[in-house]
């Protein structure tokens, strides 16, 4: 598949937008007209052609611009990429997983040649041609996790499994929805989920942890999560909240359609072979309200979901200041007609 990569920004002048094709393949996360937490984990199997689930690692028209944005974040704050010393094997596992998947499914853009441990990686969109020795850190310009994630869309966390828990001991997190790797690194599954309201009482995390501890090689799983972002900003980190928080107050009835974005995280999890670690990938997709309502079913449904979402959740997701204005705007795109089951456009 040959992709055309857009030139766009996720900060300052915010020129990011979705092409009509990108809108059609947007991973809309609501299969019903209401939303509540659930253990919505499913097998990460290949989905329909051209969907965001077609391949295990999805590369799209925003690839080059997102990688430029990541480089900027890492230049300003190297703490967004961290790895505890015992995670080096998992880092190599991750590099292999991403290089293999990207080169297999996007051979026009990425090529991997392996001769034993002598590897050659070609990344045409970013102009990379790198020979290195798998397992030898000194042959790459960055440690393996940082090296490959500077070339792959999505945030990544590596979870070590020990003492009947999962420990977030490494990660590259530059496009997060308000959590800090620097703060959370070294935490176990229960600890890093502590700030999430409601779900804890529902026993969601206990069940999710049990499930993930038994995750098998070759059987990746995925789930969708969502939040909202004002302006198409990838770096909604707590680190920079003092800079972007103010944007939440800039929404007016006139600019809702352009400023307010639904942000969906496609979270996929793989068991890694050599390290027995789990890679937890968090790939963010954003769509502005104007783009969303070009799919009538999504406009209707998102209006209903946002209108009825529980206040605690709205608060946690940071929607409070602009939720009503957005609901009002969306109401003009909801004629009350019934919506069909499932995620897909009609």
């Amino acid at each position: 598949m040959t992709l055309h990569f857009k030139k766009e920004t996720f900060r300052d002048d915010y020129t990011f937008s979705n092409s009509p094709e990108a809108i059609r393949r947007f991973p809309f996360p609501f299969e019903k007209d209401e939303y509540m937490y659930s253990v919505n984990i499913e097998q990460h199997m290949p989905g329909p052609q051209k969907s965001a689930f077609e391949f295990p690692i999805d590369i799209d028209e925003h690839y080059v611009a997102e990688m430029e944005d990541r480089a900027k974040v890492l230049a300003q704050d190297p703490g967004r990429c961290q790895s505890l010393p015992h995670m080096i094997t998992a880092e190599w596992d991750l590099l292999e997983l991403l290089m293999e998947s990207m080169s297999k499914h996007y051979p026009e853009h990425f090529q991997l040649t392996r001769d034993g441990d002598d590897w050659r990686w070609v990344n045409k969109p970013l102009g990379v041609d790198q020979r290195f020795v798998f397992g030898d850190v000194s042959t790459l310009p960055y440690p393996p996790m940082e090296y490959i994630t500077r070339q792959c869309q999505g945030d990544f966390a590596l979870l070590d499994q020990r003492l009947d828990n999962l420990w977030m001991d490494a990660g590259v997190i530059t496009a997060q929805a308000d959590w800090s790797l620097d703060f959370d690194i070294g935490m176990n599954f229960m600890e890093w989920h502590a700030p999430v309201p409601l779900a804890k009482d529902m026993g969601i995390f206990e069940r999710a942890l049990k499930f993930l501890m038994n995750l098998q090689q070759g059987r990746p799983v995925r789930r969708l999560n969502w939040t909202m972002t004002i302006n198409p900003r990838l770096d909604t980190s707590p680190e920079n909240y003092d800079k972007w928080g103010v944007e939440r107050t800039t929404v007016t009835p006139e600019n809702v359609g352009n400023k307010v974005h639904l942000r969906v995280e496609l979270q996929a999890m793989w068991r890694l072979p050599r390290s027995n670690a789990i890679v937890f990938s968090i790939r963010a997709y954003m769509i502005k309200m104007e783009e969303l309502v070009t799919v009538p079913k999504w406009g209707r449904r998102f209006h209903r979901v946002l209108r009825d979402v529980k206040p605690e959740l709205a608060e946690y997701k940071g929607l409070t200041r602009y939720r009503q204005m957005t609901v009002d705007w969306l109401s003009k795109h909801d004629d009350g007609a019934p919506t069909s089951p499932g995620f897909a456009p009609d």
Partner: protein
Amino acid sequence: MSGGVEIPVVVSDIEQATPTVRRFRLTAASGQPLPHFAAGSHVVVMMESGERIIRNAYSLVDRAEDGSSYSIGVLKTRDSRGGSRFMHERVEVGSRLKISMPVNLFPVFAPGRRHLLVAGGIGVTPIYAMADELKRQGADYEIHYAVRDEAHGAFVGELRERHGDRLTLYRSDLSEVLAVREILPGQPFGTHLYVCGPQGMIDAVLEGGREAGWPKEHLHSEHFQAPPSGDPFSARLAKAGITCEVRSDQSLLEALEEAGVDAPFLCRGGACGQCEVAVVDADGELVHNDHYLSEDERSSGRKIMLCVSRLKGRELVLDL
């Protein structure tokens, strides 16, 4: 969801490692490299024995450099379900088997400062892989391996060659005893211990560790066991409307599989929790043999692990 991905393999080599242990080299039938695995992993080997399929879990010893094969070590035992006998008597070079993807329920504690690997008999198989991995990482480790005599110690020569002085062998024919109280003192703060072997040995080592003042969090063991036999009973699946008989020589899980039910499983040794099922009714007493359910869950009588636990009584009704 049952055991997941199945990989067809061909037996490419059989080595009589000791009078009672054979090492089987399993080569991928597809010619594609087999997945890497983390030290301590096992695979479930599926053997077609006439009409039924025997599934036994075996720790992975190693993976060929080029990824073409794994090896496992199998002790000849009179296990009631016949897996070990099948491997020893029916499997030859060229035999075709299937294996599951590797699963690791016995991981190395990566941040550990030092690692003591303790093996007894056939329990050496995961320890072999763990020692290799620790050597590769340049970590600090010791191997303590108890065998009946040199001839009955599987892989002793290889271990000595690879790990030199780090290996200490205990031969019971020379009255050498692997005494935990002798190897535990003097280990640096932050050391972790791993033990795999007969249940009696595991219990003794863990107790010895606590006796030596080690925190339980630093003592790791492979709770891997063959399903115990017991009295026969009936299992009825409330949702599916199926009833099947569980023979004394098979596990509940195996009986369900024989009846064509695609039941969930992963380790088949009572450790992983994948095959947990809700009990609707039990005419008799639940015999819990797993290492997974909590005391409260056991005493509630509401849950059972299909792979190793059974009923002492007439009929068990499951929420399946």
